[in-house]
């Protein structure tokens, strides 16, 4: 609906109306830009003091006012990667089932439940993770992993229940709906002709999905996974409750760790010095930059698939 305002703009009421709407859009824009500006401004003292070494020094010590984010970056990246791998494996196959294999009486309720899972607040995931999953990890899952795969250093050492692996599993449960729902939508945009052509050549349903439909949708599915990764990287409360909150880099996935978002959540109200506060805000700025880059990438990937589907019709 272009140029509506221009055509009827001679009436004063309409001019005011358009101006008011434009004002709202400008306020919205100002909020977004203000968000970025305020984080940059707040991180300036820390940026000046620590420079880029902030990113690769590994001492996070409020007592001596020396701040390096490496252990936090490590914890954030590893917990999110565990989550993305787990959610990717289960989520993509779940999407394949929902888009192609499931009879309607199963597809509807399963999709519905998976979508509702996305609506569960993260503090509820955290509560469940802390009192149900963490003890299960400590008593059952971690010892089992150690018995079978204990020769790998990542499954060695004592398990406290809370740690990188537990955080990764909780995050996986939280992002599975994202992977599943978007992958399912992407798969349904692949034209039926391709499925029919493959089936008519004698391929089974499974071969059709794995060799024709999923490869055709791979950019979009990859986009869904990146988007889910973005959610995992910025997730705060649930991670804080189950990761153990210790700023150290350990080889074992059973070990407690810390993430960028959890540090802010735990320490912001306790930060006594200006440089401490500024270092925490710089972590926020880092999260902001990472999430913008990751989301932009995901949107470009998914956009390419949905646009292709539209032009094919």
């Amino acid at each position, binding site marked *: 609906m272009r140029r509506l305002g221009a055509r009827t703009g001679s009436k004063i009421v309409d001019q005011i109306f358009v101006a008011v709407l434009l004002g709202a859009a400008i*306020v919205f824009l100002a909020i*977004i830009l203000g968000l970025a500006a305020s*984080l940059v401004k707040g991180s300036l003292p820390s940026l000046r003091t620590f420079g880029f070494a902030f990113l690769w020094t590994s001492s996070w010590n409020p007592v001596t006012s020396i701040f390096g984010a490496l252990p936090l970056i490590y914890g954030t990246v590893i917990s999110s990667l565990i989550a993305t791998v787990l959610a990717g494996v289960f989520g993509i196959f779940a999407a394949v089932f929902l888009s192609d294999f499931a009879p309607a009486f199963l597809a509807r*309720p*399963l999709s519905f439940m998976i979508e*509702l899972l996305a609506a569960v607040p993260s503090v509820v995931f955290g*509560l469940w993770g802390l009192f149900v999953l963490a003890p299960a990890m400590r008593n059952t899952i971690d010892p089992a992993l150690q018995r079978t795969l204990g020769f790998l250093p990542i499954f060695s050492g004592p398990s406290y229940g809370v740690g990188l692996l537990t955080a990764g599993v909780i995050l996986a449960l939280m992002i599975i709906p994202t992977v599943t729902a978007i992958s399912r939508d992407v798969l349904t945009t692949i034209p039926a002709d391709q499925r029919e052509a493959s089936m008519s050549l004698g391929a089974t349903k499974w071969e059709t999905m794995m060799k024709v439909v999923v490869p055709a949708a791979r950019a979009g599915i990859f986009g869904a996974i990146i988007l889910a990764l*973005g959610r995992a990287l910025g997730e705060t409360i649930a991670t804080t409750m189950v990761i153990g909150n210790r700023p150290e880099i350990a080889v074992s996935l059973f070990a407690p760790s810390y993430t960028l978002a959890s540090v802010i959540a735990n320490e912001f109200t306790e930060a006594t010095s200006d440089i401490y506060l500024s270092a925490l805000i710089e972590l926020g700025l880092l999260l902001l930059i990472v999430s913008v880059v990751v*989301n932009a990438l995901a949107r470009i990937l998914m956009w390419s698939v949905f646009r292709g589907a539209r032009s094919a019709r």
Partner: protein
Amino acid sequence: MKSYRSRRIADAVGVTWSFLCAFLAAAVLLIILGYIVVKGAAAINWQFLTQLPHPVGIEGGGVANGIVGSIITVGIAVLIASPIGIMTGLYLALFSRGGFASTVRFLSDVLSGIPSITIGLFAYALLVAPFKHFSALSASFAFAVLMLPLLVRTSEEAIRSVPRAILEGALALGMTTFRSTLRIVLPVAWPSIVTGLLLAIARVAGETAPLLFTAFGSPFWELNPTNPMAVLSLQVFTYAISPYRSQNVQSWGAALLLVVAVLALNLLARVLLRTRIRAAP
């Protein structure tokens, strides 16, 4: 060349495996809800819903101030976000021209992916630090910023989905753009906009991270939004990580209230959307 038999087996295994994945993902919801309902119901009684939190060590007490606090903070957030969000959506749908509109749309998408904790930092810098005082108002502002991208997107789509001919008909009869938008376009788009609003409310009602340094929490009855205030989701968090068992139990109760509210809002939004789709020709 693989035998026909082995290909049939691979097919059956693959279909079964993908079914299991979908089934497990859905089962996670039931498992978590099951725990919340069973453990939460044990904590809920009349006192839990109507009393203030008791000091640690004294039996009983409730989360009444958190329930009220959630309603106040989310309510103010709706008052801040809905005019800005709906009007921005209207602008993008009706008067968007090139560069400015696509910039707004792109930044709105970007905003929807930003972690809520960084939005909390923004609210802190803007509304807490200058006054050196935590407040429910700053939490409402953070909530509003979280709601805006969803509101802008759903309002724009709702208004775009109104057939252009309806608007043109009104304009041809001599109505101003203002009146025809208000009287003709908005009433048709309204159910979709309300659906978006309900989903946005459901999203922020469970949000906890930005509250840590905005609303901050409070053990008292607090109705003044310029003071620190108890919020239900924050109570779930602080009671869960508390070393006291009695508070852990209350955390499950508060979580049940939160989950019921959030899922009810989601279901309501779906029902509204479905009736609208059915009503459309």
